[in-house]
C-alpha cells in the first residue's frame, strides 16, 4: 500500500484560495532580512519569490492525508526545491494550489517523491510552479 510509481500523475483538488496581503508580505520579507522596496511598495507590494512555498505547503497536506500513500510528515525530509515563476505573487491575489505527484523512486524503505504544486489565481491566471523533492522513510514493517 505504500507510495509507488503507480501514484505518479495523481492530482489533488485545489486548495481554498489564499488571499495575499501586504501585512503577510512585509512579515515574510522582514523574516528573510530583506528590505527590497518592491516588498514594501505603497501601491502594490509583490511577495519574495520563495513566499510561494508558504502557499504550496498548504497543498502538501493532501499527500500526507492520502491513506493510499502511507506517508507521514515526520518521516519526510525536504531534499530540493524549485520555483518557476510566471509573475510575482502580489497583494490582493487569491491563490489556489494544485498538487500533482510527478515522480516516485523507491529504494529499500526510502521513497524519493517529486511533487509539483501549480499556483494560479482563483480566476485561473497561472502564477508559477513550486516543485519539491521529498525523501520519505517508510514506517518500519511496511515495504
Amino acid at each position, binding site marked *: 500500500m505504500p507510495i509507488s510509481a503507480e501514484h505518479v500523475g495523481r492530482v489533488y483538488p485545489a486548495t481554498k484560495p489564499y488571499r495575499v496581503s501586504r501585512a503577510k508580505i512585509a512579515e515574510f520579507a522582514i*523574516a*528573510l532580512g530583506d528590505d*527590497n522596496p518592491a516588498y514594501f511598495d505603497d501601491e502594490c507590494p509583490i511577495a519574495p*519569490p520563495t513566499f510561494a*512555498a*508558504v502557499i504550496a505547503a498548504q497543498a502538501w497536506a493532501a499527500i500526507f492525508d492520502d491513506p493510499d500513500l502511507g506517508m507521514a510528515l515526520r518521516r519526510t525530509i*525536504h531534499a530540493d*526545491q524549485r520555483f518557476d515563476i510566471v509573475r*510575482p505573487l502580489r497583494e490582493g491575489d487569491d491563490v489556489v494550489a494544485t498538487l500533482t505527484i510527478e515522480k516516485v523512486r523507491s529504494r529499500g524503505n526510502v521513497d524519493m517523491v517529486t511533487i509539483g504544486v501549480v499556483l494560479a489565481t482563483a480566476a485561473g491566471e497561472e502564477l508559477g510552479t513550486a516543485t519539491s523533492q521529498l525523501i520519505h522513510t517508510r514506517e518500519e514493517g511496511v515495504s
Partner: protein
Amino acid sequence: MTAIDLAQVAKDDQLPTLELHLTRPDVVRYSGASTDFNPIHYSDRVAKQIGLPGVVVHGMWTMGAALRIVTDWVGDPARVSSYFVRFVNPVPVPDDDLGTTVQVEARVSSVADGVATIAIEATHDGDKVLGAAKATVRLD
C-alpha cells in the same frame, strides 16, 4: 532601483558577496512568517532526537535569504524567473547572542536570450549548505 546595467551583464561576472547573520529569534520569526512550526526549528530536544546538533534554521529561510544576492544585484525581484536549490547541510543556530553566519557567493554562469543564469554558493563553517543552487533572471 536598478543596481546594475542589465545590458552589460556577462558570463563569469561576480555578484557582490552576501553575509547572512542569524540568531535564534530570527529562526522563530521565520517559523511565524512561513507558518512552518516543525519543532526542530525551536526545540533542541526534538532536534537532537533526530540526530541534529540542536535547533536548525529552515532550509526555506536559507533559500529565501540567499536569493537576496541576486535581487540586491538585479534590483527588481520581479525579474527572477526560476530558482532551484538542493538542501545539502542544515545550519544549526546556537541559543546565544552571537548566532551564526552563512556566506553567499554568486556568479553569472550564462547569458542567453535575455536571461542570465546565476550560480549561487552558500556555505556555513566551510560546509556547503545549498547544492546546485541557481536562479534565472530576465534582463530585457
